[in-house]
């Protein structure tokens, strides 16, 4: 996975711009994919590799800014705007909505390439985090209901004895469940388990 070729999407309604960017991106060593409209791009399935989007602001039909709004959840696909006549309000709106750069045509190739490089790095980080979360979720799902109860009480700071009291089971049984939790969650210490619980959003089940 880490070595899969990154994809750079280009959405621009101008054929010259599209073609020139395709060549430049390929020459720089990435995989370009070009689209003439926002709708065409939306029809493309989500890739499982690092990617970014080079997006023209003024597009027929769905505009660049509207497409950006639809992609708001996609932290793994940073957006670089390019525009023939970017005005200030448009730039502000794009940047506020999370674009990583706003380039005015014509732009320097190395500026664009450096920006793409940065965008792909972000994408990689976002994908890694997502993958980690996926693993974490799977681990948590593999716990029995009793183990999940024990985990939430343990991470809220209760001692084994107190956990036993809460659940009406012996301290020995608590210890056994706790060992299972640590193993299944691949936690090497209590602080590690607490961190993972926080990322999963596991809440304390304590009655107190």
């Amino acid at each position, binding site marked *: 996975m880490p070595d899969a070729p990154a994809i750079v999407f280009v959405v621009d309604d101008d054929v010259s711009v599209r073609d020139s960017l395709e060549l*430049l991106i390929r020459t720089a060593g990435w995989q370009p994919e070009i689209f003439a409209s926002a709708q065409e791009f939306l029809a493309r399935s989500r890739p499982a590799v690092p990617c970014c989007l080079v997006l023209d602001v003024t597009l027929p039909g769905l505009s660049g800014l509207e497409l950006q709004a639809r992609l708001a959840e996609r932290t793994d696909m940073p957006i670089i705007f390019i525009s023939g006549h970017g005005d200030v309000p448009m730039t502000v709106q794009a940047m506020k909505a999370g674009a990583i750069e706003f380039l005015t*045509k014509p732009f320097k190739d190395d500026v664009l390439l450096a920006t793409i490089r940065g965008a792909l790095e972000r994408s990689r980080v976002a994908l890694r985090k997502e993958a980690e979360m996926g693993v974490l979720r799977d681990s948590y799902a593999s716990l029995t209901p009793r183990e999940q109860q024990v985990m939430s009480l343990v991470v809220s700071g209760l001692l084994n004895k107190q956990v036993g009291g809460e659940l009406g089971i012996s301290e020995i049984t608590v210890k056994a469940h706790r060992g299972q939790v640590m193993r299944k969650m691949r936690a090497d210490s209590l602080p590690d388990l607490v961190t993972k619980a926080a990322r999963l959003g596991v809440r304390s089940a304590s009655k107190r």
Partner: protein
Amino acid sequence: MIDRRRVVMHYALRSAWKACAMAKDATITFNSPAEEVTPLEIVDSIPGLVAMLTPAGEVDVVNRPVFEYCGQPLEAMKQWGTNGTVHGDDLPRVVRVFTQAIASGAPYDFEARIRRFDGVYRWFQVRGLPLRDTSGRILRWYVLLTDIDDRKRAEVFLAEGQRLSQTGSFSWKVATGEITWSDELYRIYGFKIGMPVTLELIRTRVHPEDLTLLEKMIEQARNGRTDFEWQYRLVMPDRSTKYLHAVAHPASDQDGQLEYIAAVQDVTARRISEEALARARSELAKVARATSLGVLTASIAHEVNQPLSAIITNASTCVRMLDADPPNVAGARETARRTIRDGNRAADVIARLRALFSKKEFTLEVLDLNAVTQEIVALSLSELQRNRVVLQSELAGDLPPVTGDRVQLQEVIFNLLRNASDAMVGVDDRPRQLLVRTERENADRVRVTVRDAGVGLDRQNMDKLFDAFYTTKRDGMGMGLSISRSIVERHHGRIWAESNAGPGATFSFSIPVGPIPTSNCLTLDTSD
């Protein structure tokens, strides 16, 4: 005129009264001893209405014309203060003036309506003079009543006319500075009627921006004897603005001194509607210009920018491919080919654009360049006035007709006028003088010249002036002069610019007189 006649009458009658006065007390012996005349006979012979009063003011003797006018016996006339002899509206004032005069012994002079025998009231000027003995004691009062009804009627008529037309009038004796206003003018200025008028008083009302104009007018009036007219504004106490239009005519007063007679009309309502119209028109023009030019600019920028951007990217990629180890020559060749394609695309955009500009309709007709100029000047006038531009036209009287497109030639003149006006926007240390002149350049050509007193031309960029997209204005498009040049060239004319000896610039164009050869018209529509 009336005044002079009145003065003469006054002196004539005064001598007559003196004669009467003596006659009442003693029989006057004239040169012919045979004719002894009684005082009453003398008084009766005066062709005016004359009365004599006791020192206490009681009516004592009246002459025949008085009886004839009033149709009342003397006893009834003594009761003039109560029996309706004097018009009820005038009576309180008359009684006040009269009793004051009798008490103080000072001569009096008032105007009042007096009833005729048939019940009709007519306006009279009533003047009373005391006759005193050597010790200064009043012996009797002499009263002369002059029928001024016709004059009064004319005055009322005039005042009513002034009120209705919101036109006041004034006279100004230049040497003495004496200014007389009509009632309506007091109303226009919002001053109390009858208040003494001075230039200082007038200055307190005149709009600060128009004070210079006022001073100039005063100076011009002092120095010359010409008719003139001007427009200025007043700022009223409630901060509202009034627009006035004044016309003045020089005359000589009785002593041969320079005196101006002027009419001043309140044209506020008209100006406000004119301004609203002009504003609406200019806003409309601005919107139309902004939309067409804005859309045009955006589309030019976009259309040219796209291939340009691609060209730059392709060229960069090409360099990268050649720099690679080993160089990707085939890729570079293909990229260079694409660069050429995009370059041609950009050139196409420009060609399309040029076609768009030159596609205007061109209608030829025989034209009087003076009329063409006057029309567009009239249309631009309010805009120029708003920019406080002083426009001067010098249109040649002997201009031969030309053949051309009226609207397009007007567009050229309009562009020159607007440029001239814009060039003077920041000018405050000198008049924003704008001269439009038409003249015969030689036997074959006529010329239109627009001269301003603005910022002038930058010597370095003189040759760029008529290029498209060249502009010195902050929000200019740089199309005006470029379009103007293409229009003038289509008329087989030429357009040029010169720096003035003083401040500002002069733009001129000249076109041939007579018909344009028709073969040239055919070439006009081949742009697409």
